């Protein structure tokens, strides 16, 4: 870990400005991802701006009947919120499928969205990795890639985004609210928050340096059966091999997003038109153009089968 300075931000705009001024500055929220990466010198910020005191930790109703989740709301609290449990079951279930109780107590809504990949080569500074060290190459391609992406990757990077929560938010059509260093606010559909790697896997989101997430807004409840199914080798405390977030209406229509398969929560709206025709058709559209490795080709049938089980469960 490199030496760094630490300051507590006093307002969202001030936090954004503080980070913007220093190219080596980062926000820190729960710290459950950033600190681990700093210990390994995968991230080497010279300044940390602590956003925990910004009072962005409440869940409020919005005028259009949705919910506005403060960026600092802890994963535990969000999962337990009665409105979330009642109206956005897929989100509550996705949160509870992630990490462990201790981590969820610390992890925040914004931090969870922005957590970095779990690609094992990204974590080993002895290995080439374009995301960690642009231009050094990608050790995972041709290496051990069981956990990695089957779709959306590039010749430069096939890392997955590991969040469960983000997959549910993608299915819920959430939008991210930010403050920029100049004080301007903007909203970004969660669909556009994460970028595909292309030639620049080190650039992971649409956020500018210093842009602070203040909240995530959920539109009014979508109803339907809301299911989050996370598939993994061990029963708990493991990242998804694949996961399915689904909102299924009584008439069989609905929405589906996938985790564990791509560099971002994976949703293809056009695939949802196939929902009444069943999982095979939906999965085929969702994963059209997939480029799996030998290690992770099983994810394609696994998605189809998991989706099948989820749709069957939704029918009751």
């Amino acid at each position: 870990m490199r030496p760094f300075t630490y300051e507590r931000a006093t307002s969202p705009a001030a936090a954004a400005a503080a980070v913007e001024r220093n190219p080596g500055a980062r926000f820190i929220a729960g710290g459950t991802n950033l600190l681990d990466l700093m210990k390994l010198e995968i991230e080497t910020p010279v300044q940390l701006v602590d956003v925990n005191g910004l009072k962005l930790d409440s869940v409020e109703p919005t005028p259009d009947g949705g919910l506005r989740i403060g960026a600092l709301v802890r994963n535990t609290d969000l999962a337990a919120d009665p409105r979330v449990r009642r109206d956005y079951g897929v989100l509550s279930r996705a949160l509870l499928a992630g990490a462990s109780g201790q981590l969820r107590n610390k992890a925040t809504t914004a931090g969870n969205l922005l957590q970095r990949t779990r690609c094992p080569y990204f974590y080993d500074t002895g290995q080439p990795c374009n995301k960690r060290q642009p231009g050094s190459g990608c050790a995972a391609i041709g290496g051990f890639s069981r956990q990695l992406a089957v779709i959306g990757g590039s010749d430069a990077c096939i890392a997955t985004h590991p969040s469960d929560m983000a997959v549910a938010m993608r299915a819920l059509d959430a939008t991210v609210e930010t403050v920029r260093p100049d004080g301007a606010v903007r909203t970004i559909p969660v669909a556009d928050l994460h970028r595909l790697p292309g030639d620049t896997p080190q650039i992971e989101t649409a956020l500018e340096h210093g842009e602070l997430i203040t909240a995530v807004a959920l539109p009014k409840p979508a109803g339907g059966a809301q299911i989050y199914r996370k598939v993994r080798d061990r029963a708990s405390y493991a990242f998804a091999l694949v996961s399915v977030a689904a909102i299924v209406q009584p008439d069989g229509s609905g929405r589906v997003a996938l985790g564990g398969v791509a560099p971002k929560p994976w949703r293809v709206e056009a695939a949802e038109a196939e929902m009444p025709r069943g999982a095979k058709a939906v999965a085929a559209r969702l994963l059209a153009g997939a480029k799996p490795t030998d290690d992770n080709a099983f994810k394609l049938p696994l998605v189809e089968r998991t989706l099948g089980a989820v749709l069957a469960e939704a029918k009751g």
Partner: protein
Amino acid sequence: MKFDTPATTNPIDRLAVVGKPTPRIDGPLKTTGTAPYAYERQDAVPDAAYGYVVGSSIAKGRIAAMDLADARAAPGVLAIVTAGNAGKLGKGEKNTATLLGGPEIEHYHQAIALVVAESFEQARAAATLVRVTYDRAGGAFDLARAKDGATKPEDGASDSEVGDFAGAFAAAPVTLDETYTTPDQTHAMMEPHATIAAWDGDRLTVWLSNQMIAWTTGDLARTLNMPKEKVRLISPFVGGGFGGKLFLRADTLLAALGARAAGRPVKVALQRPLMTNNTTHRPATIQRIRIGAERDGAITAIAHESWSGNLPGGDPETAVDQTKLLYAGANRLTALRLARLDLPEGNAMRAPGEAPGMMALEIAMDEMAEKLGLDPVEFRVRNDTQVDPGKPDRPFSRRQLVECLRQGADRFGWARRNPRPGESRDGRWLTGLGVAAAFRNNLLTRSAARVRLDGRGVVTVETDMTDIGTGSYTIIAQTAAEMMGVGLDRVTVRLGDSSFPASAGSGGQWGANNSTAGVYAACVKLREAVAGKLGFNSADAVFADGQVRAGNRGVPLAEAAGEDGLAAEDGIEYGDLDKRYQQSTFGAHFVEVGVDAATAEIRVRRMLAVCAAGRILNPLSARSQVIGAMTMGVGAALMEELAVDRRAGFFVNHDLAGYEVPVHADIPHQEVIFLDETDPISSPMKAKGVGELGLCGVGAAIANAVYNATGVRVRDYPVTLDKLLDRMPEVG
């Protein structure tokens, strides 16, 4: 004390303390966080500096250049140790690769430098400033590819043949010929390898976490080219080892070198991401098993061959040993072949040999039972043998495999198992039951102790035996209490110090039986001293209730000891009983699994182990050992695998996020039954080991249950969902 004839009645048979469920005496220290582990001995060494290990980022080749300038100049740095400045080092007898590499690199994350600084954070930060350029060399990293070039291991004795295997196999009406694989595994114990080293002139003291004090004292002295009398090791608490801490490892050597270079004590804990590739691991195996049987199920031919790899000078994984002994059959063959691999060093992990060997053999037995149309329990029972099948004049000292299988089957409801696979369902789960035998040899090795009786009647035991979370403190205290006729509250046990008499140490499930037998021997001598001092005939003296009595005279032990106390030192040594008899431990594992019909996720539902392993010295700690071993078996069956990068030559998933071991949610109801048994051939304690028995066979019982649930036979561990998926039923 020489143990060369079977034990007769002795004071242990009173079972006033031994054999009683006894909570671990170190338990409160552990649960309150007051048992000091090696890295935390600031009480003994208040001024230790911190060392951080730099590991090689190539698997094979040479260091072309190493630039230490920036690291040296970094804040707080006191010293940097490399092979270039450490002076001439020897090598431990038990080490295959050198512990401080350079310029030659033998494996990935081989230690190449130790950065010592005032604080841990400074050492870590400076370590990233050590700049190394390498000349990379090619190596062999793929066991499957290296297999054909594998050779007979140098130490001979790798092959065995009885009768005419080939002829009998060819003639058998029912045969099986299958190949099974087990992956590389890492010990993944909670406490990392950790050491504090302090020099006092030319004397060295190290506080460390180690299972085998005498081995490691010798190897540390050997590596540092110093007399072993000048080295003192202290390892009273060990936060798990599983074989990973049997040997001198880099933390200890580097702490000693770092302390010498820095001129003050140094502490080093191996960083978790380094542990996997820096230390030893259980090597992967490829195992071919052939079994031939008559239609009635009698085995006529059995062969087990195993291939594994290691660095030059390393040993093979002895995965075939149990197959020499477990089942009857007149014609037999086993063979081990060793390939050269440039992966990190392969070595012992809990139940080396039998753990992976039983994972393969016990699937083969399940497959064979099915071919024969026999129940898997019945097939095993039919092939029981009470003698070493290779040397029929050599009986087993005690063998209750059949009883374990039968009792387990009863208890588990085995009769309700549907023999047709893939037909039992519970909602979304396909369910299945599996069974496997458990087998692990009982190893005898000398072990010594010192016992002292003081003027307050307190008995103190000292031996370099270790307690690696197994319960050694407690069973040793029980043994001394039983022998001296006092309560546990009158016994103090001190372990893990090289200034104490050398014990068996902790490994190979030999610790419990041998170390308590050594304490028994020392106590016999102490009893003689007490009796002698009082003028009692020691054969008549009865030690009970804190007194020694003969005839109608009774003297409190405290009084007998007097002001100066009495002490005795002795050990157990074995004759040839283990040559005349085969000594092994037996058991049966029963498992129920559910397999998600859609995703093929496998979840264990219940587990039962029935063990026959001689006298159970402490049913409570023995049960803990067995359920822990069963848990490890779940890991081996369902998730544990070091992923090999076959290009760069290393284990990729080298932390606890990437290398999955079971979590609580994976472990359901576990039950353990110990058969009431004594084995007087084994030792005066009439005990054997259980800590590894509990692991041997679990993996296969799970794999067999998965087969029973799904009809999919997986022969490559771990059994993960991707290996089942294409043969699972249609969804929906």
